[in-house]
């Protein structure tokens, strides 16, 4: 099983969720993060003082999926989240060793 972590632009969340649902992803979790990256660093003025806006609001999506679904999912997220402009985000994949569904105590791929 793999954990896929995608950090995307907030307003792309709904589109990405729909695209993932269409290819059969049934579970994920979403959190609010602030991203620091190439997009960061523009200057604003607040009460006459300049400051650099380093952190940009982003949405992080995490889902654990069977190994064979990874490529399709990467493809789907990448397409749905792309605007072509800087700050579109990243997707990372890591290994997961175990999974448990709390309600039933099912394990591993059954738990996804």
């Amino acid at each position, binding site marked *: 099983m793999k954990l896929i972590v995608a950090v995307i632009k*907030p*307003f792309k969340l709904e589109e990405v969720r729909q695209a993932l649902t269409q290819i059969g992803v049934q579970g994920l979790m979403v959190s609010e993060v602030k991203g620091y990256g190439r997009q960061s660093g523009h200057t604003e003025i607040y009460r006459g003082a300049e400051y650099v806006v380093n952190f940009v609001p982003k949405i992080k999506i995490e889902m654990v999926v069977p190994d064979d679904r990874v490529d399709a999912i990467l493809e789907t997220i990448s397409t749905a989240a792309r605007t072509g402009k800087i700050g579109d985000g990243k997707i990372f994949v890591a290994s997961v060793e175990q999974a448990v569904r709390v309600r039933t105590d099912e394990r591993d791929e059954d738990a996804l």
Partner: protein
Amino acid sequence: MKTKSLVALLALAALAADPALAQETAEAAAPVAEAVPTHSVFILNTLLFLIGGFLVMWMAAGFCMLEAGLVRSKNVAMQCTKNIALFSIASIGYFLVGFNLMYPGDGWSIDGMLGAFMPTSLEPVGLTDADGNFTGPGDITYASVGSDFFFQLMFCAATASIVSGALAERIKLWPFLIFTFVLTCIIYPIQASWKWGAGWLNPSDDTGFMATTFGAEFLDFAGSTVVHSVGGWAALAGALILGPRLGKYAGGKVNVMPGSNLPLATLGTFILWLGWFGFNGGSQLAMGSLGDVADVSRIFTNTNAAAAGGVMAAIFLTQLLYGKVDLTMALNGALAGLVSITAEPLTPSIGLATAIGAVGGVIVVFTVPMLDKLKIDDVVGAIPVHLFAGIWGTIAVVLSNGDAGIAAQLFSIAVVGVFVFGVSLVLWAFLHMTIGIRVEEEEEMAGLDSAELGLEAYPEFGKGSQFV
């Protein structure tokens, strides 16, 4: 321009120094210049009710913000819904039944006990002709019926607001609204008629039961008992039948469930504080004479002093007891101070008013945890503030008002308590056994907002993720 006061004083001093002159001026001026014309009295009294009324109306927003700030965020939208709905229901119920039940005039159904049943009608449009002469029917020595109704309605609504806070986070919307309707139509007006409608607790002559038994009428200027403790009793009955929030006393401990938005609760307190000037000041019921308006001024000052006393008592006491000041106690302290002075805001000196309010603040600090020990779950502290401080305030009348008798006060507190608590208990129990008053466990866990309203008070997650 601020020195006018001085100038006037000096002018007066000058007059005083030359009695003849003063006399002369006074004589010349007196006939036309001193008397306040009847119509002006009517206008000024009416104006007091209108100003007082809108200030007390504003308290509805205060209760709403206070409660919205002290519940957990998953129940905030519901608390807002309940508050705007209860105010609306009170407006309708008091019009349909309440006002004439409370002020039956000569139309008592049972003398001194049960008023008249009919909707309120206002006096006709345009009581005066083009020259300002009175042409309409009715009483022109008091104030307009419309203003009187408007003012009194707000007291009725305030009573209902008290209940909503105590029962927050677990009561179903509709049963709560049904209770509110009965409270504002029937329960509140009946007991209020006993005192303010000139019923058996306050008959217009000296041969009544109170006078003969206790040698004193029941005195409650603006409603420490008639309004606040009534809300408190109704809330207490509800809290007992409804039970505490899930987990509140789990594991034999008092589990803290902090309010979600303290600046909102603070705002609510300030709103209530402001509205209270209308509540107490308007209860003078007149400002068409020099004496009345000076009395209203005393009331404003004392009301403010009592609130300040309540705040400072709560602040000092929480610092002493817990080593830290508790903001929510300070807020409750302000309100307890206000409730405490409500039964007699006129006669105390500023110092006494401050002290009476301070005792209210002390009461709150001690009784909030006491209720918790009794496993009575009052989300916003409504029972300590409105019931306990209300009782204290009603007793404190004897400290400054020579007409008050401790026995008459205690008896009346008890009478109102038994009636309101009893009827409320029956009504809550009835609702409980029929339609049920409490949401399902799972709904309570998820929060009333999503369970009963299908929305969230603060729905955002991922700023801007809501569809672009």
